[in-house]
């Protein structure tokens, strides 16, 4: 891979994370347990969609093959997607959605904070902008983890179950491969292993306040950096990409 290929791949990872999670949150539209949450989840999804657009537009320019944000979003197959497996997992119940959101928000907050100091000015600008939004996202998901964990017996049990079910998807956030190493060496990317201590500290504090038990690290799955996904991504893409693929020149 050339340096340029690696930057392209790195930007896809960032953009795909935002886009796939945003798409998942959009599925809650009209289905959330209360009106305020319907608004919250779709607003967060919209922020993520905006972030994805900035990352994917940049990725398309770096690649230099004439693919714009829409081309990248709607005309790539599963093996070309780079989002974390965590983010394509189904919404499940509200507790499962919040568990996924909380662990990712806590990670993304730290990643954007570090990325805002990137030597790549454009990337730093996108991260600084997105960090403001992620600050609110993290506050929102943190509130729910505490409220449901330290709530009724039923909400506690559901929240704990959701955390246990998703736990093995989290280690992938802190993986580094040759692309990550090269980006860190160039001062462009983030050394995610260095975020681990701060992430653990934040997550442990919130789980303790929520009276939830941090699961044992007994299993983990990964593969997104090589385009190896769970079966769920295919279904997301089928829904998200149907219209532009069926009617490639469709306009509003």
């Amino acid at each position, binding site marked *: 891979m050339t340096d340029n290929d690696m930057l392209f791949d790195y930007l896809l990872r960032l953009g795909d994370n935002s886009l796939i999670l*945003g798409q998942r949150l959009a599925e809650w539209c009209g289905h959330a347990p209360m009106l305020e949450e319907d608004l*919250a989840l779709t607003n967060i999804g919209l*922020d993520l969609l905006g972030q994805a657009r900035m990352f994917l537009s940049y990725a398309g320019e770096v690649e230099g093959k004439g693919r714009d944000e829409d081309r990248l979003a709607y005309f790539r197959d599963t093996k070309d997607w780079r989002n974390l497996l965590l983010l394509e997992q189904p919404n499940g119940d509200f507790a499962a959605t919040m568990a996924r959101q909380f662990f990712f928000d806590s990670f993304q907050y730290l990643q954007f904070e570090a990325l805002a100091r990137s030597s790549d000015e454009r990337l730093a600008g*996108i991260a*600084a*902008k997105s960090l*403001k939004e992620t600050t*609110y996202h993290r506050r*929102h998901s943190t509130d729910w983890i505490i409220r449901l964990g330290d709530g009724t017996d039923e909400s506690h049990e559901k929240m704990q179950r959701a955390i246990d079910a998703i736990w093995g998807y989290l280690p992938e956030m802190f993986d580094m491969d040759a692309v990550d190493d090269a980006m860190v060496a160039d001062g462009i990317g983030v050394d995610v292993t260095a975020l681990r201590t701060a992430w653990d500290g934040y997550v442990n504090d919130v789980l303790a306040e929520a009276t939830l038990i941090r699961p044992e690290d007994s299993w983990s799955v990964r593969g997104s950096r090589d385009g190896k996904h769970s079966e769920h991504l295919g279904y997301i893409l089928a829904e998200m990409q149907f219209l532009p693929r069926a009617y490639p020149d469709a306009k509003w």
Partner: protein
Amino acid sequence: MVALAAHEDIESILALVKDPEIPVLSIADLGIIRRIEEGEDGRVAVVITPTYSGCPATEVIEADIADMLKLHGVSDFEIRSEISPAWTTDWITAEGRRKLEEYGIAPPASKGKAALLGHEGVICPQCKSTNTDRVSEFGSTACKAQYKCLDCLEPFDYFKCV
């Protein structure tokens, strides 16, 4: 001198463009006009900044700016968007804050004040009580949160501090 006069002209035209989601505010009140550039050939560039990354109003605002410029006979222009430095609610003008409050939306706390208090100290736009409670971090648009006043019991929107 001519260029300066023209510049002020563009500024006053832009001040007529409203925020599509909060129509009491102009885009100047909102603080999203980053600068106006005028080339020697007379071509005007309006540089704006989005409030939130996914704000659907951004594209409407660009279209409204274009319409307003054309309406006032300015035909040679371009509109560009820049995200860095990121927009902050501290760029909303004093006039903008006053209009928000009159409209029933609590204006954002200044970042300095929010940091000093450790919270945003939201004031009810109806009765001015500080005895308010957050209902939800997110409201009808990306930039607003939902609050209620514990004194006059009115629900209201708060323009979030970012």
